[in-house]
């Protein structure tokens, strides 16, 4: 019992402390709210100054006397405004950090990127560098950051390099971040999408590079597809029969995304691929290309054993217009029940057919 009494005494003291703390929170809440409102006001004022600078109403020297505790706020606001107002604003805002009073901010951030032991800080710096310094200054440290031991820092550095369209970073990114086992493929592809058409030539070069890794090739192919670049079609077609299934799938998808009819014959042929995922991707892409020659292949796809191939084939047939719709209606008498069902579903989804129409199952 003695032990329990001791614990109880400690708890009563702890309870007293917590109650005191609660009273303190309640009493100081109005003051805390006032301070928060004041901080918000300061933030708004700084934002207005930055916007004023963008409009040419405030001189850049106005930021040279910024208080050290407001430096992080300044960086954050500049980045936010740059995102809102676009590339030309970003270029102009960088000059805020080139005055004598603010130049040390960039130096501090660069030091932090290479020396900080906290990966959060390195990541934060890697994220904000494009908004505070010119490309020549930040590209080398960001390229080095692609080799950071922490994947999140590498990822942020890659995004920043994409933001400034640093095409020299493409191959290092493909080599350092294309890690499908550790990192979702989509996240890396997004980096290349952010580079827009600037990435195309380097990505194409990489595809023809004999030592290119298959995993990295998948990233390059997908990114080219999402850039909608017709000049990438021959290079992608060259990989459509690759022994790696994933490469074939991404080639089929990319060809659809590009939307060039040049790819149609190869896609039709690949509708007979041994892997259903490849056939499904081909069927989907043929619908995007809207080439009538694909009709017999898509009709064949209606009876595929895989649901997604049947669905994509039916959906793509509907995309072909009147002829495709007619073919789908004719498929109501298909000897395969699944082909009949999927044809009816797709026509109903598109409001071409009502539920009571069609044929029995």
């Amino acid at each position, binding site marked *: *019992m003695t032990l*329990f*009494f001791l*614990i*109880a005494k400690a*708890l*009563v003291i*702890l*309870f007293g402390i*917590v*109650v005191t*703390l*609660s009273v303190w*929170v*309640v009493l100081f*809440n*109005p003051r805390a*709210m006032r301070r928060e409102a004041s901080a918000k006001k300061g933030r708004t004022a700084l934002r207005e100054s930055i916007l004023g600078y963008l409009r040419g109403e405030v001189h850049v020297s106005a930021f040279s006397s910024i208080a050290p505790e407001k430096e992080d706020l300044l960086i*954050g606001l500049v*980045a936010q405004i740059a*995102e809102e107002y676009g590339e030309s604003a970003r270029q102009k805002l960088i000059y805020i950090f080139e005055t004598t009073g603010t130049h040390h901010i960039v130096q501090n951030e660069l030091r932090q990127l290479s020396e900080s032991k906290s990966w*959060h800080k390195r*990541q934060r710096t890697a*994220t*904000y560098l494009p908004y505070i310094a010119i490309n020549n200054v930040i590209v080398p440290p960001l390229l080095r950051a692609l080799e950071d031991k922490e994947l*999140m820092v590498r990822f*942020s550095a890659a*995004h920043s390099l994409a933001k400034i369209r640093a095409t020299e970073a493409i191959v290092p990114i493909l080599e350092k971040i294309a890690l499908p*086992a*550790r*990192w*979702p493929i*989509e*996240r890396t*592809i*997004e980096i290349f*999408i952010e580079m827009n058409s600037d990435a195309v030539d380097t990505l194409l070069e990489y595809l023809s590079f004999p030592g290119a890794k298959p995993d990295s090739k998948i990233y390059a192919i997908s990114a080219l597809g*999402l850039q909608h670049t017709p000049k990438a079609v021959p290079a992608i077609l060259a990989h459509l029969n690759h022994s790696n299934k994933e490469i074939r799938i991404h080639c089929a998808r990319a060809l659809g995304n590009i939307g060039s009819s040049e790819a149609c014959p190869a896609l039709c042929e690949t509708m007979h691929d041994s892997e259903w995922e490849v056939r499904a991707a081909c069927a989907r892409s043929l619908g995007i290309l809207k080439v009538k020659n694909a009709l017999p292949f898509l009709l064949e796809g209606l009876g595929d054993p895989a*649901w997604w191939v049947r*669905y994509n084939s039916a959906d793509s047939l509907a995309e072909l217009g009147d002829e495709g719709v007619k073919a789908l209606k004719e498929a109501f008498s298909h000897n395969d029940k*699944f082909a009949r*069902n*999927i044809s*009816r*579903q797709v026509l*109903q*989804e598109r*409001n071409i057919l*009502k*539920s*009571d129409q*069609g044929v029995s199952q």
Partner: protein
Amino acid sequence: MNTDLMTVLNILITLIFIYFVVMHGIYFLLILLGFFAQKRYHHGIQFREFKRISQSPLSPPVSIVIAAYNEEKVIVNTVRNVLQLRYPQFEVIVVNDGSEDNTVQLLIDYFKMQPFDKVYKKHVETKPVRAVYQSTTHPNLIVVDKENGRRADANNAGANYARYPIIAQIDADCLLEPDALIYMIRPFIYNRNVVAATGIIRPANGIEVDSSCKIVKRNPPDKWLPLFQYVEYLRSFQWARLGLSSLNSMLCMSGAFTFVRKEIFFAVGGANVNAVVDDFELTVSVHRYIHEHKKKGAMMEIAFVPDPGCYSQVPETLKAFWSQRNFWQRAILQSLLWNRDMACNPRYGMAGMFAFPFFFIFEAISAVVELLAYFIAVVVTVLRIDTPSVLMLLFIFGVLLGTLVSICAVLLQATTRMRQEKTGTIIRLLLAGFLEHFGYHQFHMFSRLAGIFDLLVRGKLAYGYRERTVYKTQADQEGTAPAPEDFPYGRDLV
């Protein structure tokens, strides 16, 4: 007095003291762990990250499944709220689980739905589907009208019709934040090993929506009963679950807000239709699957997102509260008994070695221990055995310690960006944390005892009494009814 009786009584008193100290101590530590986990989460969010997810064509599409049974009061608003989520690609599947009210008709009328013959693969067996409808105004909305089979069956039917790789299950009375999908999909995007996720759920009773069902105010409830539950949600569903999650021990993804990879959902056999409630059992099944299929270097995970994305109605009357807690108690106990082979089994990692014993000792049977504590308090009073000190210790360990945990939960909340701004609200929450131990907690205890009895003796599975209220809208205050265009029922029915 009989010395044997005294010895037994002393042992019991000692055990109860230890029980309370350990239980509240663990909760206190879990709350602290949760607090630090939340700090880490906010630290890890990168600039432009949510915008990128919301705009990327490569963000994984999501199928949102809403199981609805007699939900005519809320269903249209819930669907409207969900349809305006900020996310690149998602579909909404409302599964009408044999409602006896106007649920389906309201949906058909409001969203101009037409019947259609959707082809799907039946991964799990469900009660027969009567019809499927697709909206002509929102192509990503379908309604599956099926015979009644309880929520698990409805969720399974919805999953059968789901087209996308991630299934989000929400309740029909839930309102989501506009960015809820972005928050919840983020762990799936950045971590391939995440197979399921859940997030913070808050009581919806105090929130206000605008005429388009978008959440505009997030106030705590006005009434005391929901306010007690608000504090309880803070303590148990927010901090403690986050703490449990950081120990890989979170055994309950709330059915009101669960995200799961479709392949995993079907791999565990879907939602268990024989369970009292499917969410606890689903979470345990996913834990089991994770540990039975673990690969070296790639352990699957269940994520907990500490951003409030979902608001769910909590009972406003004692009758409804009793039913709900009775139901939850049955669910926990049943699932723990069904999966008892996982308890203290190192094969199941922290879930087996910590979560199972913790949930069994401090959740499933806590009501019995509390009742025993009250009984002992009566006995020592009647027998006049060192009464003041025993009663005082019981009060300190049972009530004061519990209050301490609740108040800490409220105080920690005040340090986060989800803090309440008004001093009056903070006072009310702190008071609720204190007052819940005088009446509310005891009522809760008896509802849980009834739940244990109902499961073990009566084998009861049904939910019981439930109520729904219409959400407060800004228009309510302005006195105008935001009746949707061409909607014959007006606002009163929805």
